[in-house]
Each structure stands twice: as C-alpha cells, then as structure tokens.
C-alpha cells in the first residue's frame, strides 16, 4: 500500500477494463468456433450460453433481436461458429461474447453460399414486396410441387380437404432433396404455371437437416418461383427454417400444413358468412319495407288524407270569406255609382224645358210641329201652337214685328 492514490474501486476497475476491451478493434468483430453448452432462453427472449472447446469456455449472450434471426434451433453439444463482439459486463467483471449470429459449424460453406445468393437476389429485386402477387380468395385449383411420399404432401392434402374441399388438388411429384431435386422442382413449377390453369402453387417439403432443405436454396428454383405468373406459397421445413424460396415466394408458410391453411378459406367461416349474408339480406329487405310503410303511414296521417272533409271545409271557409269581401266591394262600388247618377239626373232635370215653362216661359211651334224661335219663320194669318207649363193655346198670328 505504498501508493494510496492508485487504489481503485471495483466498478472503476471493471469500467477501465471494459474501456480497454471495447477499444481493441480485433475484439469488435470476431468469429469463434466451439460447442454450445448450458444453453438457456430467458423469458426476456435473450439467449445465454457457453461456448466450449477442449479446455476453455467462453460466456456468450445473444439478445432477442438477433436471436429472432436464427435459422436453426441451437442445442447443447452442437458445434457452431458464433460471430459477435467481445465486451465486459461491469457488474460481474466478466468478459463475454455478444453474439450477432450463430451458424452450425461444418455448414460454413453452405451458409456463405446462402448469404451470397440472398444478397444477389435481393439486389436484383426478387424479394421486393411490390412484386408479390395477391393470393386468390377462393382457389379452385391448387398445384402442389413436392414429394409424393412423406408427411408434407399428406398434411397439405388433409388440411386443404378439411378447410376447402372445393379446391381441386393436382400434385406434381418431384424429388425434394439430392442433386436432381432443383431441376425437377424448376420443371414442375414451370409446368404448373403454364399448363394447369391453377390459381395457386404450393411448393415445399417437410423438415430436415440444412442439407436436406438445400434444393430450396437453389438459385434456379428461386428464379423459377419468381418467374411464375401464378401465386406461389413456399413451405419448407419447420418454423425456424428459412430458405431462399421463402424470400422469393409470394407468401412464406412456416410449415406445409400452414401453407394449406394460408392457401384456402375455412368452409365453416364461409358458411357463417353466407348465413350472416342471408340474415342481413332479409333484415335489409324488411327494414326497407318497414321504412316505406312508415312513410306511407306518415303521409296518410296528414289532415288532407285523414279528414278530407275537414280539409275541404277549410277551403270552403276561405272561399266564403273571399265571397263576402267581394260582395262588400261590389256594394261599395254600386253605392258610389248611384250617388253619381242622382247628381247627373239633377243636373239634367235643371235643363229640362218643362222647368223653363214652369218659370212662365212658353214654347211656340208651327203647324208642322217645328219650334219657332224667330218672327221671320211665320207669316201673318198662320196658325201656331203655344205650349205653356200647363196646357197649350192654338193661336193665329195677327202681325209680325221683325227686328
């Protein structure tokens, strides 16, 4: 304890070592070969295990996000190549490998080939979502490209039959493993696409080792799937197995039975839909008629329909009122006329010759009845008539006095 100032806390030391390890470029990306042991998957989804060889062991962790991309099921005793970075977990003061990938050892070359082909086809757009074709809703004919033996074809036919027996199934038997498999699968895909008038193609096989599934990582098979005008479902192996075919196909199914489930609707569901449609159609027709009836009732409840006489009475009252107004106007008008007539008659009366006679004037007319207003119109000795207000006189002219 010569130099107290150099004493570190545990955490400080761990942090120092961590910083040192993290700064070493060689440790930021390493590949380690070893055997899996003590493999545990925590509820968090993270994977914890130890890599061992003859006389050493290494603590490893693979977080959930990376673990989800695993293409196989890691098991204790399995020889693998793990890739990742080395760092220190400060709490335990232990260094460990933070894995980003684990691949089975011995298949190194296959995995390399897989990754390279995947990159190449991805670059060419064979996996693009926009090239994926929609699946038919109710397939009438399904072509199945797989081995005629084994569980896969049996599962597919069984599930299709149980869910949707309306779909006809045509099997194109091919070998699904071995050197001849890719060529046969390609030929069958092309035939199914061009000759069978199928709505859908299912291709795949049951589970097996990575080598067994290899035909579905074949470049020609991938291109044959991509070239199909008919939608293709790829169903290779079990859930964690992913092949190039799965990326190229229009839909990836986890297993062959799953492919059949995705391929067709369930008859029971369609029955339910049809029953519901039946109810809905009846319901809609009934409520339509009900609405029409209500409208009819509403219209017929209006006053004119329900009590037409009352409606007419209303009109009649209005008519009467109008008539009254008209009569009054006519009387007013007539009354005015009568007064005017009386005035006119009075004026006329004032001008009457009889009135003049009444004031003492006389009217003289000749024998021919003509009014005589000048002494020159008569001669002496001529008879004339003098009309007075009351009575008349027959006279003889004695003498004329001309002015």
């Amino acid at each position, binding site marked *: 304890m010569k130099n107290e100032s150099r004493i570190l806390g545990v955490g400080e030391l761990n942090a120092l070592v961590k910083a040192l390890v993290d700064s070493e470029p060689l440790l930021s990306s390493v590949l380690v070969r070893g055997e899996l042991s003590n493999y545990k998957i925590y509820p968090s989804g993270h994977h914890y295990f130890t890599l061992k060889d003859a006389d050493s062991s290494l603590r490893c962790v693979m977080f959930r996000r990376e673990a989800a991309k695993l293409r196989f099921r890691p098991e204790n005793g399995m020889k693998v190549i793990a890739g990742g970075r080395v760092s220190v977990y400060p709490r335990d003061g232990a260094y460990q490998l933070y894995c980003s990938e684990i691949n089975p050892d011995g298949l190194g070359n296959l995995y390399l080939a897989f990754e390279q082909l995947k990159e190449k086809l991805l670059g060419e757009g064979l996996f693009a979502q926009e090239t994926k074709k929609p699946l038919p809703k109710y397939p009438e004919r399904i072509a199945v490209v797989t081995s005629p033996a084994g569980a896969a074809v049996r599962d597919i036919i069984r599930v299709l039959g149980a869910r949707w027996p309306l779909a006809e199934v045509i099997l194109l038997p091919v070998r699904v493993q071995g050197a001849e498999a890719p060529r046969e699968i390609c030929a069958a895909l092309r035939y199914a696409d061009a000759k*069978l008038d199928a709505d859908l193609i299912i291709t795949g096989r049951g589970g097996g080792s990575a080598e067994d599934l290899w035909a579905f990582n074949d470049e020609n098979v991938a291109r044959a799937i991509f070239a199909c005008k008919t939608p293709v479902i790829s169903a290779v192996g079990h859930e964690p197995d992913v092949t190039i075919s799965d990326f190229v196909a229009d839909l990836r199914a986890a297993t062959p039975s799953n492919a059949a489930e995705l391929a067709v609707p369930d008859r029971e569901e369609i029955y339910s839909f049809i029953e519901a449609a*039946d109810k*809905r159609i009846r319901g809609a027709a009934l409520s339509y008629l009900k609405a029409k009836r209500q409208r009819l009732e509403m219209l017929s409840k209006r006053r004119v329909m329900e009590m037409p006489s009352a409606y007419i009475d209303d009109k009649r009252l209005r008519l009467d009122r109008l008539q009254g107004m008209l009569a009054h106007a006519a009387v007013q008008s007539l009354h005015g006329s009568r007064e005017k007539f009386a005035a006119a008659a009075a004026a006329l009366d004032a001008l009457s010759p009889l009135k003049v006679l009444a004031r003492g004037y006389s009217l003289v007319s000749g024998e021919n009845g003509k009014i005589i207003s000048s002494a020159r119109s008569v001669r002496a000795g001529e008879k004339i008539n003098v009309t007075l207000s009351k009575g008349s006189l027959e006279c003889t002219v004695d003498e004329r006095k001309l002015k």
Partner: protein
Amino acid sequence: MSKEKSFSFEQSMARLEEIVKLLEKGDAPLDSLLELYEEGTELIRKCSKALDSAEQKVTKLARNESGEIEQVPFAAEE
C-alpha cells in the same frame, strides 16, 4: 385442363357482398330491391350448395407408357 366457369365461387361471393351492402344502404327503388333480394337469395343457395356438395378431388401428374403426362387419382399413404 381448363376449369368449368359456369359457377365462380369468388364472383358469387363478391356479388353477394355487394348485394348485402346495396340492400343495407336502403335507397334502392322497390323494384330493384326485389330483384337484388332474389339475386342474393339465389347466390346464397348456389354457394351453400357448392359448399355442401364439395368433395375434394386429388390427382397427380404421371407419365403413361407413351411418355405423355396425364392426371391420375392420388391418395397419400397414411
């Protein structure tokens, strides 16, 4: 190997869905309502019949003696 196109389940179902929507909208005149109703019940009858009477048909392609491809019945071994 072309399919019989006299009855298309897909088209029938699409039309049935359309009819249900049209009827539920409820603004069709009475005449076309009756027509739609009849068409709908007819489609329901046909679709139900297709579902009831369906029997899965499974064949496989095989080459005959003269090397031609033909369809033969297929039964998967259990």
